[in-house]
């Protein structure tokens, strides 16, 4: 298992989801980046492969900010490690 840093998330958003880099900041929500629920499912599949831990499909919503998402992933990875 590995951690997901904010920078990792940014590079996934830019490279795999064609988000414009100039829009990205820690406090912006996925919804504001036009990442809807279907894209979020796809994003979590990509993140799962990065961190090599299962993350529930509903762990992150479009209203969450990027920094909150990084925290949620960290919590999930930690929880998976202690199970």
């Amino acid at each position, binding site marked *: 298992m590995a951690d997901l840093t904010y920078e990792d998330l940014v590079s996934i958003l830019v490279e*795999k*989801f*064609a988000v*414009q880099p100039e829009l990205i900041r820690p406090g912006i929500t996925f919804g504001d980046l*036009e990442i809807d629920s*279907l*894209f979020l*499912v*796809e994003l979590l*599949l990509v993140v*799962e*492969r990065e961190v090599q831990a299962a993350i529930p499909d509903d762990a992150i919503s479009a209203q969450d900010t990027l920094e909150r998402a990084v925290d949620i992933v960290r919590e999930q990875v930690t929880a998976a490690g202690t199970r």
Partner: protein
Amino acid sequence: MSAPGVQPDIAVTGIGLVTSAGIGVQASWEGVCAGVSTARRDPNLAGLPVDISCTVPGFDPVRHVGRRSRLVHDRFVQLAVTAAREAVADAGLDPHTWDGARVGVVIGCGVGGTATSEAQLRSSLRDGPRAVSALLIPMMVPNMVAGHLGIELRATGPNLVTATACASGATAIGTAMQLLTDASCDVVVAGGAEAAVTPLIVTGFAQMGALSANTGDPAAASRPFDAGRDGFVIAEGSGILILERAADARARQARVRATIAGFGASADAYHMTTPDPDGKGARQALLAALARAGVGPDEVDHVNAHGTSTPLNDAAEGRMLRAVLGDRAAVTSTKGVVGHALGAAGAIEAAFTVLALQTGTIPPTANLQALDPGIDLDVVAKEPRHWPIEVAVSNSFGFGGQNAVLVLTRA
């Protein structure tokens, strides 16, 4: 030309094309009139028994469609969006101001997002089910091409995809005519889209013996009606037509490129892939289309044939055309230049037929050097023919014995 008060004529007010001859109507038409095949060796097919195709040169989804296109669109949708934007602009229409509820979308597609399916199957076999994209299904289902065009064009009227194999594009145009005739729509975005030049699909067609095996000389492989033909060359592309009732088009002072006067459809009910050798089903569709148009067989000036370059199709189609139309019409197959784009072919060829009517120019059949002695038709070869055309026919026949014939007339 239809009897007044019976069924309205349908005007073509815009066209859009993305073909192996180029992106856009002008590049496609110039390419097809030059009469030189666009078939090439295809690096994506390396190592396969047939490794040649007609693909769209220089197509960039980000530039031609949008930043996020690669994430959400299979290539068949990307080609359709590009052609549809050109067609709507060509018609002088604006999706921001039209009444979207009165705009329908009918697109023919024979295969769908097979490139996406094949890539996802490889991922899942390699890395397991969690490697499968959540976007697999919305990217690969064939109806999504009409769905995406509805979103793109704010068109909320009837929205569907027709699947009659290689006749799909012509079936879509015929279906669109009906939606206009019965006043379900005021405008229909009609056409076809296909991007199935993938290792699996090409191998499947090769295993059937449908493809030309002349891989040593790709540019000579597609040779409709030629004595030396041995199969088709697979292609990708999209053709989109904007259709309106002719009276409506006149009322908004639109430029009418041509009129779709007739459509006929039929089934061979003979064999799943072999055409009826007597062309009975094709003849029935042609006669129905002529009857709907109110024109006689002896009035047809030009035929854009299905002309796939397979031995069986061209022989059966050639006999059928000679029997129904005689030898007066100047026949061409534009598949010599742009190959066979399957579900998009009928729409691409309808657009070429519109341009032939409008310009009085019939593109030559590429690679036609020695006409098959069994085909007694005036097939245009080598050079474009400048020829006044009032009435033209565009034939499309699909595996499954599904036939769709359009009759177009000069505006």
